[in-house]
């Protein structure tokens, strides 16, 4: 066959691409290589962990990523800014609104129109972003409980997440990849009656969070499996560039929504939960999950405040045009720009280099939180049991779409 379409098996191929870092000669006696993944229920994507074990104890972990690499940066360097937005959605597909918000904010600051965005647009952006943060944390906690061995919380949280998915689907027509926040505005205003239905949903959700804490966080089995497991000291966390709930779980009160005060977050009233070591030590798996659950309450607070403003002094009227500021042609001046925002999983940064002539970025680098957070796994899982490795991996809460970009 002149043009082979299918994979041609050759036993040299595997040898050439060197799938493992460790070779049989490197291992001491009693040690062996165990592959976790590429597909494992706890990895939430395609990731292979090359685990060197001595009996049940982990000696070393080497993560192998890149199975989901879809070349975001290469795409971004060949497309105009407004056409990159759909690709941003696909990086962290559980928190598309937050990623879009970060990207749109970065381009707006480059164009110098960040101050002119109408407040109603900003409030809608924060409203949908926080709803998406809730949905993302629900997946994180629900699937984490499933990794530990509890199935009910997963079903309950997926049920509640489904309500949020439907609300967001109602706003923009897509279930997970929204493309709703545009550079300079929004795709469309909120649908009629959204505020009322969202308020009713918030009322429904509040007691459910209490149930979640009783069912998961104070559960004896859950505490035994996660407390004092995967300890991440604060200095190690900072040295590894960890961000988001993982960093806050280690006890540092650092939230970019407060520190940078972007968008309308300075006008809103919310707290930053940190890990306190209630069940074990500060910075263990339980603390990280605890921070996520507490953040759900804070997101609810933000959503309520946004709804209050959106139905109060920023109510919809005929003159309001969500796309008024969307530029026809994007041409940022020649400069370097790094913008960062707080995603559900941590700091999402976009670095742009523009040449001042075209509307295509010369270099666009996405600094994703999962990529950096995952790099600490070999540090915190040495000396653990194999079963704890799954608990540690789940508590990092990775989305492989963002790890590989």
């Amino acid at each position, binding site marked *: 066959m002149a043009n082979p379409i299918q994979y041609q098996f050759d036993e040299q191929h595997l040898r050439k*691409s060197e799938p493992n870092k460790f070779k049989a000669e490197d291992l001491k006696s009693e040690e062996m290589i165990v592959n976790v993944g590429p597909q494992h229920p706890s990895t939430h994507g395609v990731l292979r962990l090359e685990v060197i074990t001595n009996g049940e104890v982990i000696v070393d972990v080497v993560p192998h990523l890149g199975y989901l690499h879809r070349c975001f940066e290469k795409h971004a360097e060949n497309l105009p800014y407004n056409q990159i937005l759909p690709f941003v959605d696909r990086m962290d597909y559980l928190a598309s609104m937050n990623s879009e918000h970060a990207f749109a904010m970065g381009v707006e600051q480059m164009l110098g129109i960040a101050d002119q965005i109408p407040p109603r647009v900003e409030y809608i952006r924060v409203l949908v972003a926080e709803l998406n943060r809730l949905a993302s944390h629900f997946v994180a906690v629900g699937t984490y409980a499933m990794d530990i061995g509890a199935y009910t919380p997963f079903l309950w949280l997926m049920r509640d997440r489904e309500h949020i998915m439907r609300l967001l689907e109602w706003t923009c027509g897509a279930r997970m990849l929204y493309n709703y926040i545009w550079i300079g505005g929004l795709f469309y205003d909120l649908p009629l009656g959204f505020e009322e239905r969202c308020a009713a949903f918030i009322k429904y959700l509040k007691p459910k969070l209490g149930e979640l804490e009783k069912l998961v966080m104070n559960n004896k089995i859950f505490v035994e499996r996660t407390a004092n497991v995967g300890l991440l000291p604060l200095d190690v966390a900072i040295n590894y560039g960890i961000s988001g709930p993982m960093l806050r779980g280690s006890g540092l009160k650092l939230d970019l929504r407060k520190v940078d005060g972007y968008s309308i977050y300075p006008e809103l009233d919310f707290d930053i939960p940190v890990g306190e070591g209630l069940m074990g030590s500060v910075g263990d798996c339980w603390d990280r999950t605890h921070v996520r659950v507490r953040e759900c309450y804070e997101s609810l607070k933000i959503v309520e405040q946004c709804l209050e403003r959106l139905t109060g002094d920023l109510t919809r009227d005929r003159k309001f045009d969500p796309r008024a500021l969307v530029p026809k042609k994007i041409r940022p001046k020649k400069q370097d720009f790094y913008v960062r925002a707080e995603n559900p999983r941590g700091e999402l940064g976009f670095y742009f280099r523009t040449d001042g002539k075209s509307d295509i970025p010369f270099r666009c680098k996405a600094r994703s939180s999962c990529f950096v957070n995952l*790099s600490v796994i070999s540090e915190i899982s040495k000396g653990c049991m194999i079963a704890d490795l799954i608990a540690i991996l789940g508590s990092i809460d990775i989305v492989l779409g963002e790890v590989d970009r």
Partner: protein
Amino acid sequence: MILEEIQALLTDKFGEDIVLATDTDASPPMLHIPAAKIAEVCMALHTNEKTYFDYLACLTGMDNGPEQGTMEVIYHLYSIPYNFQLSLQIIITRETESQAYAEVPTVSHIWRTADWHEREAYDLVGIHFSGHPDQRRILLPNDWEGHPLRKDYKEQEYYHGIKVIY
């Protein structure tokens, strides 16, 4: 802490020619450092009590294309206690006939997070980091040809019998 103070700190320690240029237009403000000195400068910024840049947010490798013949590495630092951001830029020449590859001193002994970022820059742009503990490709397989984020990158036609170009 403002940019002039950091610049003064660096010139005190390393001499006048440590900062080749400053770019205050960039956000965060950018210092242009000679490539050979980057690890020492980062160590100084990391350990000095007045700057204390303890968080490496991002490390970007960049190719300026064969016409310019240069490559760049951009470091985005963040000081958590002082809440100040800074970016450092180094420019190196691409590989020439006399020099097999562009090489930069690693900073992964200062911030461990640079380990993976440098591996990514090596994988996608093809910048070698001298002193890096584990210089392997991270996103692509080990026998992939070329570095995809170079401006003159050409895809290989077949990889293990799989057609690459569509």
